């Protein structure tokens, strides 16, 4: 019964998608829209057939900068959050600067990174990291701080070490909001990688879009956007999958299991 319903749902999603494409295709042909304004879906699709290797190479490059930047953002963001939560001094000194830095439109810093790090993959990774790290730091701090004070009293009265309190209580408690930060962060990392490619470089989907712009090749730009959309969506769901695997206990994940709550014996 449940399965049927789920199948029905995906059917609806697929149907909506196909109808949209058909209407798009028909409109472009019917009204003779010029290809550089809006290419037909068939024209975009044919890009994948014409230059699959070229697209794949650029997509992999962007994927690589995104994942590298994201991984660094998770590690650095996490370390910063733990440091800020554990040290009054760092909280007073580091945190305001983090907020200040976060208030700057980070895209504006991209050219600087190119000047510092060159035109290779390094500035892309660095920009991806810089844009993704804030949501991870801020949500991790929130998670580490939102420990039940009664739980802390219990731990302290039981003579738990700071280490135990961090690893057995604060960290698991912070995981749900860390994942919330990472879900925002992965999308931001992709933005960062593209911004880096816009500013400088020959490879990557961002660079591909810039080159397509130069030759008024909208179909190719759209092909890159399709790849970006797919990549962003898949990355988001991968983080969500990791969340599901790590947090089967969390309220947001309980679903069916939570509904058969036991009654008093």
């Amino acid at each position, binding site marked *: 019964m449940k399965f049927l319903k789920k199948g029905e749902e995906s059917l609806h999603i697929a149907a909506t998608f196909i109808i949209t494409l058909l209407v798009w295709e028909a409109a472009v042909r019917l009204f003779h829209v010029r290809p550089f304004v809006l290419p037909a879906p068939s024209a975009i699709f044919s890009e994948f057939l014409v230059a699959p290797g070229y697209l794949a190479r650029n997509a992999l490059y962007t994927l690589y900068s995104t994942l590298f930047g994201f991984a660094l953002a998770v590690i650095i963001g996490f370390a910063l959050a733990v440091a800020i939560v554990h040290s009054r001094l760092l909280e007073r000194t580091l945190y305001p600067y983090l907020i200040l830095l976060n208030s700057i439109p980070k895209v504006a810093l991209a050219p600087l990174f190119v000047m510092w790090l060159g035109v290779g993959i390094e500035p892309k990774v660095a920009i991806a990291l810089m844009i993704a790290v804030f949501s991870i730091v801020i949500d991790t701090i929130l998670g580490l701080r939102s420990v*039940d004070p*009664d*739980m802390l*009293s*219990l*731990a*302290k*009265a*039981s*003579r*738990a*070490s700071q280490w*135990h309190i961090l690893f*057995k*209580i604060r960290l*698991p*408690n912070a995981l749900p909001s860390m994942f919330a930060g990472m879900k925002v962060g992965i999308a931001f990392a992709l933005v960062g990688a593209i911004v880096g490619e816009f500013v400088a470089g020959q490879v990557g989907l961002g660079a591909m879009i810039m080159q397509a712009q130069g030759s008024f090749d909208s179909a190719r730009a759209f092909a890159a956007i399709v790849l970006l959309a797919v990549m962003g969506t898949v990355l988001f769901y991968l983080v969500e999958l990791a969340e599901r695997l790590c*947090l089967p*206990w*969390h*309220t947001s994940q*309980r679903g069916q*299991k*939570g509904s*058969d*709550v*036991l*009654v*008093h*014996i």
Partner: protein
Amino acid sequence: MMHATAIVERPAPVLPLVEIDHVGVTYTSSRGSVEALRNVRLDLREGEFVSILGPSGCGKSTLLKLVAGLERPTSGQVKVAGKALSGPPEGLGIVLQRDVLLDWRTVLDNVLLVAEFQKRDLNALRPAAHKILERFGLDAFADRHPWELSGGMRQRASICRALLTDPSLLLMDEPFGALDAMTRDDLNLELARLWQETRKTVLFITHSIAEAVFLSDRIAVMSRNPGQIVEIIDVDLPRPRSLALRESNAFTAYTKRIRTIFTQLGVLKEG
């Protein structure tokens, strides 16, 4: 020839396990200072069940935090096992009003948590954990998560967690305050039975007169503003105690006496 004078063997003077010695607590903030506790004196002998009974805001939870070594008194001192506290003493068992079980751990792993904090050998303790869960009717739920349990079961699990390390002093801060009346009765009975078997030293915080009389050897009655002990009452009721005892004249004489104290203090106002 033996001398005729009988040599009376006098029992060694038993030191109280907990000594709360002229303790005062004053909180100072920018808005001025608030006296939370004034001149509190109370000793707990080993194996004694003592309740602190008082209205909300009388500082009874502060008192428990002092004994747990989580707070320091402004004046006076708290000693556990003869030593003045500079932090949480060894051998505490803690049960709070909220069970604070960790959602990501199974019931069994939650029960093992305090033992983990104290770096005990968990493999050796696991059978004991099952046994204690069984005693509280929870062994079938050892592998469940806290959110699958009712409030009463969760509080039972938190009591198991406190007992597993075999604490010499059990501190309970309104442990049944958030439960429905029937579950509360049930847990009162279980706690009374448990105490009967183990004779642990218990400091029990409550605002329920009946609960205090039912469970305790002695009751320290507190008033507020500032929090102080106004009377210490010995409860001389037979053990083991049953719920039916609560309807007896002896029992109601105690509850009436305590109610009168609160009425005179103006804590309870009657028409």
